[in-house]
């Protein structure tokens, strides 16, 4: 299509800087040009042909925080950022995965939820490796998916549960009831482990305030594979902790003089060295509270992945700055039977 200057348009050009408002509004007139000829008339243009195809993401062998955290972040970001401009749907090829864990499964589900909220269909397969396949099936991931044949995957396995604990607002009832189930699995008794309810509440609080305003959602899950301990994962998609800190000018100068890396900044946030972006004096209590539960032994093996930092509260050697940036925050921790027995006897 070409644009041809019409009479009124030319008038506007001539009269520029004068009384333009007295002139007619410029009009654009379509001039019909013959359609372009394709090299082969039988072949559809590339963009139309692609539009009917899936965009396939092939996941690497290591999809776990221990063996492949960088890859896991890279691929979950790739899923989250998928735009359906040229493809009809997204296909997740998980068949080659040889190492998988709950944290990465939850990160993936967060990203899939982001894509699905943009009304893009997501399809996928499962790991071929029998151990990974078992972990994947038991994780509760599939209970958030639809079958291609129609209907939802159902899970009657109470040992594993992934719940969406909020979209616009956190749902403390759901957090509490999910934790009740987890406690019963380990101890056989149903009682409130208040500390974990409080901790997850604070995690949700932070993310409610600072998660993306569009497509907000928060995933919370536990996974019990027998034995004496249970794993919990909390995940959100948002700006991440580091981007929500309010650093004073003094802190910024001091941190740059001492070449303080992001790992030290994140550790500082859990020690209340920085304020919250809300700038209210009584804020940023949640992160120190979360750390205090780890320090006093109410939870064990607490880790956090946020922005480009992996922070292990047990081991500073394992903590590191990452090459890939995760948009959001993931916490994982464990609770064992000893912790719960001690708690219930108080």
């Amino acid at each position, binding site marked *: 299509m070409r644009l041809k200057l019409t009479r009124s348009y030319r008038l506007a050009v001539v009269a520029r800087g004068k009384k333009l408002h007295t002139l007619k509004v410029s009009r654009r007139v379509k001039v019909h040009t013959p359609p372009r000829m394709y090299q082969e008339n039988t072949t559809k243009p590339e963009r139309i042909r692609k539009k009917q195809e899936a965009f396939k993401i092939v996941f690497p062998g290591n999809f776990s925080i221990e063996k492949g955290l960088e890859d896991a972040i890279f691929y979950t970001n790739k899923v989250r950022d998928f735009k359906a401009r040229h493809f009809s749907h997204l296909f997740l090829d998980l068949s080659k995965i040889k190492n998988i864990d709950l944290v990465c499964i939850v990160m993936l589900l967060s990203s899939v939820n982001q894509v699905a909220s943009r009304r893009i269909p997501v399809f996928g397969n499962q790991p071929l490796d029998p151990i990974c396949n078992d972990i994947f099936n038991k994780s509760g991931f599939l209970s958030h998916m639809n079958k291609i044949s129609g209907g939802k995957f159902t899970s009657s396995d109470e040992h594993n549960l992934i719940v969406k604990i909020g979209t616009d607002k956190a749902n403390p009832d759901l957090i509490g009831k999910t934790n009740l189930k987890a406690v019963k699995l380990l101890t056989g008794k149903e009682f409130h482990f208040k500390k974990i309810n*409080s901790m997850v509440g604070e995690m949700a609080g932070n993310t409610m305030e600072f998660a993306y305003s569009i497509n907000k959602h928060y995933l919370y899950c536990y996974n019990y594979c027998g034995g004496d301990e249970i794993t919990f994962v909390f995940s959100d998609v948002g700006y991440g902790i580091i981007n929500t800190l309010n650093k004073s000018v003094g802190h910024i100068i001091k941190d740059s003089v001492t070449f303080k890396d992001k790992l030290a900044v994140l550790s500082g946030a859990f020690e209340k060295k920085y304020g919250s972006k809300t700038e209210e004096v009584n804020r940023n209590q*949640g992160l120190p509270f979360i750390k205090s539960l780890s320090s006093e032994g109410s939870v064990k093996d607490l880790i956090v992945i946020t922005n480009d930092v992996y922070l292990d509260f047990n081991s500073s050697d394992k903590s590191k700055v990452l090459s890939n940036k995760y948009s959001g925050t993931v916490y994982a921790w464990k609770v064992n039977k000893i912790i719960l027995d001690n708690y219930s006897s108080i």
Partner: protein
Amino acid sequence: MSINIFVHTDFSVYPGLRHVSMSQSSGEEFYHKILNGKFYEAYSKGEMLVLNLDNTGGYPPSFIDESIGNLVYDFSLAKVKEHLTIISEQEPSWLDYLNSHTYPLWEQRRIEKSIPKKTISHEPWYQLNNSGNVTLNNGYSE
């Protein structure tokens, strides 16, 4: 004589986060629906308000901070200590938290007139004014 609030029966077994905008059963909601009115009742009768925190599923610190902090902001720390007793036998650490954190910071906010954030509009609530009288507040003007 005393007036009692049992959070688990009068409000929720699972108290939520700081603000109404971010959570169900929030500290902001608890303050405006229950705590402010009951405290005023106790204050005006010269009685004690007994707030029992036990038997819930646990509290996020922000719930405690927002609800009781607003009470300090509206009535002053001196009046709150005079008319409020908090029972937390199952989690005594909340009493330490209030004494070391919420009370001093919210009293500071009150003195500095750093207006608390309200995420929805509320029915008018009771507040002690500068001349020592209780008035109904229709909302803070910034």
